[in-house]
């Protein structure tokens, strides 16, 4: 019902991008992804476990004709590692899209901005479609946008924290300064957080733990799908103005009885 998400010339009906990690089991993952309505699913790139050939392959659980895979560079702490990971992902999954993460700290998983910018530059020069995970810094977002990233993906709160949109003001500023798609990546913990992100003008939300770590991931996935649509509709509908004082919705004229001013 609301307008579609367009990133790098590709159109998505859903504005939710879902991560595939930390689900209780692959079956729940599959059903949650389906319930979420997402069309894009993130995956990580890791060494195969040579000692455990029977280990499950995530591609067995995500139908690539139905879902667009977005590999990430999670776990990389340098531009060099992130770039190599992105190239391996391109080879393994035959996609030049990459969710670029260059982490600066293991405890907060906040990005390392200079390394992120360096990696983005190199990947863009190598024809990647780069979707960078970054902090909610308007200057960094503008640099990433200016250099040609397909989207900017500031965090709402630390990855996996579920703390929601900690600084809506920064997101609002970023929205006003940036023309490429704005995806809130990380921090969303519940449905209203996702709606809030959309009402701030985000084009989409990337989430994982909020769904996979809910008590009932499939129910939450459905809730998130609706929350993102709701928030987008509210953004498109244009909310009522705020007032500190009340404004009667029922009309005043024709009340029976006495008013306090009589």
């Amino acid at each position, binding site marked *: 019902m609301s307008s579609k998400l367009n990133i790098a010339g590709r159109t998505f009906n859903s504005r939710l991008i879902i991560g595939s990690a930390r689900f209780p089991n692959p079956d729940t993952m599959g059903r949650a992804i389906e319930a979420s309505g997402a069309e894009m699913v993130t995956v990580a790139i890791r060494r*195969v476990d040579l000692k455990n050939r029977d280990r499950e392959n995530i591609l067995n659980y995500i139908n690539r004709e139905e879902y667009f895979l977005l*590999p990430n560079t999670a776990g990389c702490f340098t531009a060099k590692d992130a770039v190599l990971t992105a190239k391996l992902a391109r080879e393994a999954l035959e996609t030049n899209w990459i969710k670029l993460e260059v982490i600066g700290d293991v405890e907060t998983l906040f990005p390392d901005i200079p390394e992120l910018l360096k990696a983005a530059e190199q990947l863009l020069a190598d024809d990647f479609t780069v979707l960078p995970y970054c902090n909610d810094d308007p200057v960094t977002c503008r640099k990433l946008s200016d250099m040609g990233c397909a989207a900017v993906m500031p965090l709402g709160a630390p990855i996996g924290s579920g703390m929601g949109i900690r600084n809506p003001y920064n997101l609002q500023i970023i929205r006003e300064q940036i023309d490429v798609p704005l995806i809130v990546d990380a921090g969303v913990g519940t449905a209203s957080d996702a709606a809030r992100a959309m009402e701030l003008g985000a084009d989409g939300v990337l989430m994982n733990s909020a769904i996979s770590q809910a008590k009932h991931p499939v129910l939450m996935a459905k809730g998130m799908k609706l929350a993102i649509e709701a928030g987008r509709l509210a953004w498109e509908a244009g909310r009522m103005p705020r007032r500190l004082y009340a404004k009667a919705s029922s009309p005043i004229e024709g009340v029976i009885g006495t008013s306090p001013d009589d």
Partner: protein
Amino acid sequence: MKFIVNGEEHTFESGMTVQDLLDSLDYPTQNGGLAVAVNDEVVAQQQWPSCKLSGNDRVEIIHATQGG
């Protein structure tokens, strides 16, 4: 000849290609989804049969897994 495969040392006969390595590891490659880098350079799948490995090469064999 020694290689570092996914961070661990393995000893193989010399003159091996990437494809030989994968075969000898008995890791299933037919489903696709794998990628290989040698010394931080990606080796495209078409080149696996021709790409010869040298001693102390660092080989990375990766695939997609769950991630957020």
